[in-house]
């Protein structure tokens, strides 16, 4: 309880404010006790705090055995050694030395389990929490977030995909304005996004007015959802072109040192771009790194790929941390399935959806932990299985999204952001 006597001058000020608020804005002040009124519970425990997501997708089925879930048996691990990390008791593959020094920020989930062992179906399931079916296309988490909670920066798209757009990760049957902006090459900046040289601001403005005049005619006559979607997109494009925030896409603004630190390759630069976009309050940025489908020559190829991932993710986490962004930005590392402990005739590993690893960091996640376990050869889950919808429910929960909220497809089907997934609350706080 406040010491009212000692703060009488402030009380007067508050009374004055209360009066002004009522007079000018027609509302009362939020009563001091609102917290206890609304929340009968005790002081809230550390709540999940994610506002934005950087989703790093390892396309092809990242071998968990050669990355985050190393095994002892020589038969299983081949030439790969395990190394310690900066968290005592947690060891990962020697292919990820820089990530090993960031383990205190990460929660490694070793007990992911999927029912989908083929690429297209696996990626779809991982991105949407629903199995692929011919009759409907489901939206991804980014589009759900935009639809339920809205964008924050009115001048930039709310969802961006860099590298490629994965099945199940788009706007599905949601309106066009929730669709991701897809950027093929992060270093190219935005195509067609600058006003053409030689066109003055006024000329540009006039041509927009003219187009609007024609559009208005068209719009009035065909005022349906689709038409408005087109004009919405157009308006958004105009806003984007004229926005100062367009600079978010300019990687040249970063120092050479920073660009090299992320790795001078599309994935590394894509992660750097993701950080910039999230700094400008783009809510969901997905960056894809392919090449993980190592049926042939597993070890060499995983080592190469892991080097790219290692450099980029370690830099990303350090960068987010030093900018104070890790509390509100959830970093996700996901893949569609894992790979077999058995090494095949081509020195490769084949698909294995029964057990694999994914990683979460930031956004309220407690770092430095391993969740779940696989058996001694890494084929089956031995402890705390996490179904794909549960993994997605955890991301949605961190973002404060309503898991029970049901939205209907055009054909009247009910769907939720993570289907029936239950979030892993143990990972937070």
């Amino acid at each position: 309880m406040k010491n009212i006597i000692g703060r009488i001058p402030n009380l007067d000020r508050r009374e004055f404010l209360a009066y002004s608020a009522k007079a000018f804005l027609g509302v009362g002040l939020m009563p001091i006790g609102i917290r206890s009124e609304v929340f009968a519970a005790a002081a809230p425990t550390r709540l999940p705090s994610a506002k934005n997501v950087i989703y790093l997708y390892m396309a092809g089925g990242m071998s968990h055995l050669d990355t985050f879930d190393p095994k002892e048996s020589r038969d299983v691990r081949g030439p790969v050694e395990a190394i310690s990390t900066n968290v005592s008791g947690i060891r990962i593959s020697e292919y990820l030395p820089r990530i090993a020094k960031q383990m205190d920020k990460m929660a490694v989930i070793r007990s992911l389990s999927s029912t989908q062992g083929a690429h297209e179906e696996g990626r779809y399931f991982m991105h949407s929490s629903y199995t692929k079916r011919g009759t409907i296309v489901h939206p991804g988490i980014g589009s759900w977030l935009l639809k339920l909670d809205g964008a924050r920066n009115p001048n930039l798209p709310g969802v961006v995909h860099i590298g490629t757009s994965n099945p199940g990760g788009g706007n599905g049957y949601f309106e066009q304005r929730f669709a991701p902006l897809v950027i093929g090459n992060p270093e190219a900046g935005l195509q067609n996004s600058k006003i053409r040289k030689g066109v003055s601001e006024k000329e540009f403005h006039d041509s927009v007015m003219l187009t609007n005049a024609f559009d208005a005619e068209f719009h009035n006559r065909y005022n349906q959802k689709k038409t408005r979607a087109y004009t919405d997109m157009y308006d958004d494009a105009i806003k984007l072109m004229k926005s100062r925030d367009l600079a978010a896409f300019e990687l040249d603004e970063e120092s050479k040192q920073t660009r090299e630190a992320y790795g001078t390759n599309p994935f590394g630069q894509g992660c750097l771009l993701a950080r910039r976009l999230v700094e400008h309050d783009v809510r969901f940025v997905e960056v894809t790194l392919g090449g993980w489908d190592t049926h042939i020559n597993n070890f060499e190829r995983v080592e190469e790929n892991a080097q790219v991932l290692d450099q980029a993710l370690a830099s990303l986490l350090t960068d987010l941390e030093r900018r104070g962004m890790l509390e509100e930005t959830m970093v996700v590392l996901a893949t569609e399935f894992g790979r077999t402990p058995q090494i095949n005739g081509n020195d490769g590993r084949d698909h294995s959806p029964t057990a694999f690893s994914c990683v979460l960091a930031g956004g309220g996640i407690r770092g430095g932990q391993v969740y779940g376990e696989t058996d001694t050869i890494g084929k089956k889950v031995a402890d705390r299985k996490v179904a794909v919808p549960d993994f997605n429910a955890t991301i949605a929960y961190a973002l404060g999204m309503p898991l029970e909220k049901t939205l209907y497809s055009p054909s009247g089907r009910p769907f939720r952001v993570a289907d029936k997934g239950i979030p892993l609350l143990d990972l937070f706080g």
Partner: protein
Amino acid sequence: MALLIPSLEGVDFDKHIGPILENKCYRCHGEEKVKGELRLDSPEAILAGGEYGDILVPGDPSESSLYVLTTYPKDDPDYMPQKGKGLTVGERKLLKRWIADGASFGESFARKPEPKTRSKFEEADPANERKYTIMGEAVEIVARLRESGLQVDTANHDASRFEISYTYAERSEGAFGFETLALLGDSLVKLTLARTDVSDGDLAGIVDYSRIEYLDLGRTKVGDAAMEYVAKLEHLRYLNLCDTNVTDAGIQKLASVKHLERVYLWGSQATADGAKRLEKRIGEGAVILGSELGAAPRRAGPRI
């Protein structure tokens, strides 16, 4: 079994619906098996619903999964019944009409107001629904603030705490109008002024909001003079001063903030020396100055 087609009479639960459920549904939703925590072998059970909540909305077949799931294509993963013969067209029609007409179980069954059974989601996280939903008096206050151009959100998805962002706020130049924040009073716990033109002097207006725990001044031109005011926020936990003009001298003033957990200084004018001095007073690990990112090691082998 001959179905009575009630074209003129109403659909009767015992006569028309019960038999359908018995023949097509009890196998998985009855005494022997209780799939999805759902039983369909009594009115009470039907009303109680299953693991995901209610399956019946009287008057609205399209919201009743009891009906909707029977209308899916047979190869759909969610189609019901999953085992045995599906419902015939006639049976589906009956079910639909029964629900549309109010889903009455007959005069003999008096529907008691059931306590809402908890769905699996609620069990998993009982407070979740309440967290992000703005309630009561807060609704109008938030609406007013948004009308005045500010971005208002619940803070950390907790509906008893609020966050205001000025970054994309529509406001006339120089006018921060911190007075309007009084509407939220002690419920204002997060304030973002990142990438705005806020000046040191402007910040004098925020000292009244002593409940602020999180303050983001990143990428603004604030400097040491602003720290005078910021230091008065007794409950401040997180402070972002990245890319600002604060120096070693200014940040020392923050030592008086008891609960300060994290101060971010990357891109500011502070140095390792000043950061260390502050850290000695507020706690290890609390001051993050940051450093250059490590470059990729030069290695022999395939260049990517």
